[in-house]
């Protein structure tokens, strides 16, 4: 069943359409939500609620649109809201250098042990970023969204995305430059 058919089924009140979408996208959504929230239980709540809200409002969804970007956008916003509910005041740590270095290092490690050690450090480094910065990183490097898509997804001006990625860009230019230039 393709996504369009799943949407049609959901619009007809059939749960099978939702089952199809959940089975297809839940792991990706959960991992992205976890990277933003750093909390497995919170990530599960966020993704459950995202699918439920989508099902309840599906009649307003234009079935000609792609489902995945919409779901991931909703999920990232829900994850951000969930984190903000827990922490009203957000500390501002804009130093992305540690995270960028580790991420870069991890792209070329051979050993599983080394990779696992780096993974833990990456996670710890991610936790030093603000939830909003984490959301931008997740959208850019995990969900592989374009800058315009990210701006739309976060309901912010493209300039804000630019700012949020600015520091990372400066430091990652040499490493990622060749790859970005392909896009």
């Amino acid at each position, binding site marked *: 069943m393709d996504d369009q058919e799943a949407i049609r089924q959901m619009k007809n009140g059939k749960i099978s359409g939702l089952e199809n979408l959940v089975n297809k996208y839940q*792991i990706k959504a959960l991992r992205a939500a976890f990277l933003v929230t750093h909390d497995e239980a919170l990530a599960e709540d966020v993704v459950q609620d995202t699918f439920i809200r989508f099902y309840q409002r599906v009649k307003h969804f234009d079935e000609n649109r792609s489902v995945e970007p919409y779901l991931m956008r909703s999920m990232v916003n829900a994850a951000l809201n969930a984190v903000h509910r827990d922490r009203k005041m957000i500390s501002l740590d804009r130093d992305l250098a540690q995270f960028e270095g580790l991420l870069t290092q991890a792209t070329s490690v051979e050993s599983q042990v080394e990779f696992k050690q780096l993974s833990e450090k990456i996670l710890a480094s991610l936790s030093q970023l603000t939830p909003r910065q984490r959301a931008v990183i997740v959208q850019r490097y995990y969900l592989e969204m374009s800058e315009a898509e990210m701006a739309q997804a976060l309901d912010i001006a493209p300039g804000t995305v630019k700012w949020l990625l600015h520091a990372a860009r400066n430091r990652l230019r040499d490493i990622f430059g060749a790859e970005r230039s392909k896009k």
Partner: protein
Amino acid sequence: MKHSHRTVLDNVAQQHIPDSINLLPQIIQKLERKPLKQSLRTRPALVFLLLLLALSILSGVAYAVGRSLGYIPGVGVIEQDSPIRVLTEPVSLERDGIVLTITDAVLSSDKTTILYALENVPWKLLSHQEGEQVCYESPFLYLPDGEMLFLTGGGGNLQKARLEYPPIPSDLDQITFMLPCIMDTLPGAAPENWSLGLHFKPAPPDMTVVPVVEIVSSTDTPTETGNENGTEPKTSEVPFAITTALSVDDQTILLGTNLQQDTWLQNFHLIDANGEEIYAIPPQIEGLPSYHWGFQFQSNQAYPLTISFEGISTTRISDSKAELEFDVGENPQPGQEWVLNQPLEIGERTIMLKSIQVDSRGGYEFNFDGDPDVTGISVQISGYTALGGGGGGAYGFGYFSASKAYETLPTGQLNIVFSNLEISTLENWKVQWASENPLPAEESISTPEPEACLTLDKWTQLKAQDEPLAFNLSGNIVALVNEGEPLPSLYLSNPDGSDAQKIATGAWPSLSHDGQYLAYRGDDGIYVINLASEEYIPLGIDGYGMIWSPDDTRMMFISASDLYVVNADGSGLQQINTEPTQLTSSIGWLDNQTIVYGIMSIDGFNLQKQNLQSGETTDLFKIDNKAGYGSVSPDGQWIVFADRISAGVNWGIFISHLDGSDRKLIAEPRVPTAFISIWSPDSRWLVVNTLATGDSETPILVNPFTCETARLGFYGMVGAWGW
């Protein structure tokens, strides 16, 4: 081995989110719960408000023409058939620092209205989590003979509410107000079983009671009804009726009811005899009779008026029938699907049976396609009795389904009977309405106010103008424009709207006095933009109502009802102590150390100023608008605010000095205005944000000292103006 960035992050997350995880059971379980029931159980505050709403709809009795009605601001519409009584004096009770006050009561022949206020309820005593057991028992009245009167209507919130009860016998001058517990508090956390003795006396002769005239209506129904294509006008019964028409001050209020539960009314329009759309708003006064829909508009119109609603009406064609023979085999399996694309002629329509599928609940699902007007159908399998079924579709989509569940799944050759085709139609109903006895203007008893700079006539003229701005204005403005997204777009432009550029999505824009920085509330907190470098700086703080200090080094703002001052870079966050600790509003700065703000009181907002160094607080004056909005002019000499004119229904825009002197009406109450008006950086001009039909705002430029006016050349709400 070379990993992509996505792979790296996926592996990082995989250690916490394994591939084996499956959320489907929890999602299905949550969906099968009844969300409304759950939310009611877990949100007692909502229960209270819904109860009030339900009571207001159910308990009303149609008003009969000929009764003597009056409107008491803050209390509502009451009957004046018998002498009105009021509370002898406000009564208060303090327990553990929490103060319960009955500020007033009005006893009329049709109801008892109690105005109550609750102050200083500590935040920690209230529930802040879903699902907690909390108090939600409503206050009631206890009469000397033991009779208890329970809530029949009203409105308000935890801090301030208007409560309606049945009438109290005229020979009874003393009762007890009982509050079992404070709504939303945790069990045992706050004092319970409050009781206050109330004493009543005849209303003073000078009490403000605005005459309310019940209008004898004449309706011509139906004048027109047709489907969305404008063809084949139908004579289906108009699904709404006007139940009450009132004239209060210079306003007419129309209240009505829906006659057909299955018809959802939407897209209301009110058109005058010349075909012009009339600006109508929801009723703005309290204590109205019950209604499903209601509108308030200026009485001075070209009658008759045409009221129109759109709605989707649904009918079932009972004699429609079609049959299909189909063999599902002897052992159909859950999930098995047969794609048929079989046309069915039924009810003079052709629909397509797309597929039949065995569902997971021991039944079949039938999926249809083809006709956007068809939204449902009944299905039976001959010889089998279904345990239940479901299905349906939404109007306009063309897809719908029907399902049947059986104790034993039917197998083999099936005779499937389709019937009762459900047809939905988008219709537009129109009714003409005329007032036969509009209240003459001279009978209005509102306190006369001096001529405003912006009168209704002036506003009407300005709205129609499309001329370049004649005044030479400096600086930049920021306008909020609704572009269909959850948050408005913020556009920076010249004051006439030229050279506009979208700079952010958010609300509560505030330009620094030098025009270099813009603060606004984004989707997750306050941001500051350096407009020169286009640097976006999230302050990491949630709040709204930001206002820059004169030297642009600090901002005041509101967060969770409390007032704060913070440095422009987000550091040095300082909560401002205000007394009493009620909802606050930010108004402005007099100098770099003195802020002006509003504190919610029983009947409006009290404006105060406070010196940030000494903490010295000075009362200024009181305004009566719902949110306490106001704005201090950049030179610190004036304040602009929305305020209710005595006994009036609407609010006007005023300016005055900080002590309330030299008060001047800028926009008369008949002009529909937003609460927020914006000063020019030189303190010479005001932008009054006016509201046009269709939720678009029309900003009007007003010189409050010379009364020169002009329309700014764009739609949107001006939220900031700086150099």
